[in-house]
């Protein structure tokens, strides 16, 4: 169980990025966080995984406060961020350095088969396509068997076909061990396809504005009317979340005019 208690973040330069975010996510649940740019989505994710420490409140994993990167929390970034000096297999096994070699090799081979890249094990990252590289990054994050996996707009740099393919792939991988997934995205379709619960964030300062339960059976049909209904619901919430910000922008503009 991952719990956020009034998590807030103010950066050193005075930017108030996050204010009093409260929620908890149960084991095996998939949560998507959507919102306009600059609403603190990535800040929130970085606070959960311990790369940044929140200025207020705390993040708890099974009752234990997370203040630095935790072995049960994995993260996948927007870019694959593979280490160019390691082969594909070396990258996947990066988090298993302390395990004996036979176990490490077996788990790396299994993960690579699972993401469909076992024939690429000995290649360098530069020889992979964008989608393949991101699959390696997913395998790298999953191989240490995290309880919570955070994804920071993981598919936003990919083309539409690869994106859909990888979303299905991710669900397949999730079904193996059912970790908690927290996915930050600006793609509403992606959120509706993947998540059990969608949280809409609102900017300046970033906070949770609305929560939508998708409540759709898996696998989800992107063309169904239920899918469309949830999507429109999220879209509407997103629209409302941005409105006050637009108004204040207009005021600022007026002030500048004078």
């Amino acid at each position, binding site marked *: 169980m991952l719990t956020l208690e009034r998590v807030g973040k103010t950066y050193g330069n005075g930017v108030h990025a996050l204010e009093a975010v409260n929620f908890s996510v149960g084991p095996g649940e998939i949560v998507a966080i959507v919102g306009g740019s600059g609403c603190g989505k990535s800040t929130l994710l970085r606070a959960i995984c311990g*790369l940044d420490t929140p200025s207020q409140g705390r993040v708890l994993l099974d009752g234990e406060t997370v203040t*630095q*990167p935790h*072995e049960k929390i994995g993260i996948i970034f927007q*870019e694959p*961020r593979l*280490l160019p000096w390691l082969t594909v297999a070396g990258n996947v096994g990066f988090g298993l*350095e302390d395990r004996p070699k036979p176990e490490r090799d077996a788990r790396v081979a299994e993960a690579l088969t699972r993401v469909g890249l076992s024939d690429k094990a000995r290649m360098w990252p*530069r020889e992979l396509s964008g989608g393949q590289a991101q699959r390696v990054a997913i395998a790298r994050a999953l191989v240490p068997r995290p309880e919570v996996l955070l994804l920071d707009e993981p598919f936003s740099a990919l083309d539409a076909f690869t994106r859909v393919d990888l979303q299905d792939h991710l669900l397949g991988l999730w079904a193996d061990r059912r970790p908690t997934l927290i996915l930050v995205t600006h793609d509403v379709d992606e959120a509706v396809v993947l998540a059990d619960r969608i949280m809409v964030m609102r900017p300046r300062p970033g906070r949770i504005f609305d929560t939508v339960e998708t409540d759709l059976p898996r696998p989800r049909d992107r063309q169904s009317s239920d899918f469309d209904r949830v999507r429109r619901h999220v879209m509407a919430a997103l629209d409302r979340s941005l409105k006050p910000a637009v108004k204040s922008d207009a005021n600022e503009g007026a002030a500048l005019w004078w």
Partner: protein
Amino acid sequence: MSAAIEPAAQPKRNDAKRAKSVLSRYSSPALGLFLPLVLALGWELAVRAGFSNGRLVPPPSVIYATFAELAKTGELQRHAAATLARVVSGFGIGVIAGTVLGAITGYSTLVRRFIDPSLQALRAIPSIAWVPLFILWLGIFEASKVTLIAVGVFFPVYLGVMGAVTSVDRKIVEVGRAFRLSGFNMVRRILLPAVLPAYVIALRSGLGLGWMFVVAAEFMGASEGLGFLLVDGQQLGKPAQIVAAIVAFAVIGKITDWLIVGIAAPFLRWEDRFKSQASQD
């Protein structure tokens, strides 16, 4: 004449392509050798034909004879060994100091602000200007020579390492943090491999300067070394000996550079370079 009409032409064309690539592999060094060979041969013939006595600019055959003579008596080896020993010890000291200080200043902004300006000011001094001081401080023997070489090697290595450490990609470091690496393991598994390509370049430019400064060091008074051969050749009017020493410098300098490249190559196979891509295609 497309492959679709005449499929048998396909393998033949591949063969031709391969033959062409083999040709280009050997032809480009050969092309570079053409000009010096023609000049050497021309000069040799000119001296043989009596157009010049070749006293100040000895023809290749005389240079070769001098080289062989020096090698036979063991003189060349003795002088080369003395020079190499100076370069190796000066390079070693310069590299260690440059690496340590470069890594520390690259890593810590505070230390960089503290000592980098002083080092940059020292760097602006032409290193040869230190020679009189080094002689006063350290005497005229090995210590002052090795120190001069070490100073020459230090700055490119220091700058290279500091630049490499400060420009390590924050995103890659974050991957290390996400996998809970810190301290020694962060250095070993993330920082070291990330700075290695730049470090090899820094070592190579440091080595180049080391060879430059060993000549300066040996000019200031040495009883052995390739630099001594140069001075000796000038004072006794033996241009062939000067050229032979220059050739020895070129050969040994190139070999030491190859050593660095060769030792580092297995660790740098991952590099995404324009050249390595081109050779794959």
